[in-house]
């Protein structure tokens, strides 16, 4: 029994998910591969978006994968950190904007 829920070595086994559902697994990986190709956005820009989302999703596999992917694309540390701040800003903004709902409720009940 592994001592932690996450094992870095499991990332290499991601492709194995097709073994228990081949058609859906393959469709997913085809889609995934297509999403990250150069398009209206460059693959480099997409990699930075993925890195930011990896953090907001707090996915350790994705953080490892897109930190390395960024390095491979020549992305600098400063660019990576700025991307993460964008994710963090949206995440905290999403929390705080609900403060309006709280204010509405309080005003209605106790205004």
């Amino acid at each position: 029994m592994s001592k932690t829920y996450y094992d870095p070595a499991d990332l290499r086994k991601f492709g194995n998910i097709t073994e228990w559902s081949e058609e859906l697994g393959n469709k997913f990986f085809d889609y995934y591969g297509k999403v990250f190709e150069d398009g209206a956005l460059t693959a480099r820009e997409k990699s930075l978006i993925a890195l930011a989302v990896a953090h907001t999703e707090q996915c350790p596999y994705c953080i490892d994968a897109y930190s390395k992917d960024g390095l491979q694309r020549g992305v600098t540390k400063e660019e990576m950190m700025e991307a993460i701040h964008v994710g963090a800003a949206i995440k905290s903004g999403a929390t705080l904007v609900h403060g309006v709902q709280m204010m509405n409720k309080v005003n209605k009940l106790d205004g």
Partner: protein
Amino acid sequence: MTKLKTQSLHKKGSDLAQSNRQLEILSNGIFQNGDLPKFKDKISETNQFPLKAKQLEILQINVGYMCNQVCEHCHVDAGPDRKEIMTRDTMLQCLEVIKNSGAHTLDLTGGAPEMNPDFRWFVEEAAKVGIKDFIVRSNLTIIRANKKYYDLPEFFKKHNVHVVSSMPHWTRGKTDKQRGDGVFDKSIKALQELNAVGYGIPDSDLRLDLVYNPSGAFLPGDQMSMEKDFKKALMEDFGIQFHNLFAITNLPIARFLDYLIASENYEDYMYQLVDAYNPAAVANVMCTNTLSVSWDGYLYDCDFNQMLELPVNSKAKHISDFNEELLEGRNIVISQHCYGCTAGAGSSCQGVVA
């Protein structure tokens, strides 16, 4: 002032300065216990073993391991303390081969080849042979290292030398991390001077290509995308132009192997290389059309095998015994470092191969 990044493994008296120790590491552990397949077994899966040398196209001559830099990941373990330098006698033997072989490309490397005292004489003599593509691999900073090298751009131009230069990144931080403090600024100045005499300008016959290799334990990204990013950044920030970018994978030998082990990245890196194995790259791997000559005239399948002291599998072992017919068709000597040339789009001294 350029601050040296580190010392050579030889200077430090490291175990890893010994090629047999490196080969031992590359054959043990994950390759011995079967976690990863040995290179021989991997290429056997697609009936590509043994790898055979084809017709000789590129003669790569290493004129010495002395260098003004001590880059973190140097596969040569080059540095100012390395005294292995090609003599004029060996150069004369090389010139005979250049004249008589069918190779269309001559590729001078080092160390910093310009530091060999007979470098200019050799270039002048080799240029007279009229070889189609005459490459000198210059680390750029040598051009600014000392007054005696300031005229190198003019010298290269005079002999129509194709300049291939290392440039790990378009930012100062990443470049200096790998190659030493001050390297970026000197490299930029040297590139501007090469541009000033006509190198790297679109449509110019004076070829200037850059070599990118990753600054850490990861593989290079797509060569074309990297080239686009390098061109944009170097033009916008410094007005620098160049022709092509070669993305080269770091092979797990010498100082890069030392770095991988010290940073506990060795196993992950080998997994990356094996996961990215591409049989299509095997067909065009550079050892099949290249011959590497060491400073003392011995023959190797590539510069990496030279550093691992794995000589060619042929009766012709020295430049003085050179025999094109004997060498063609020889079995290439392989080990697990070869995965570095077959990962992804492949890697060679001329960049991707697949």
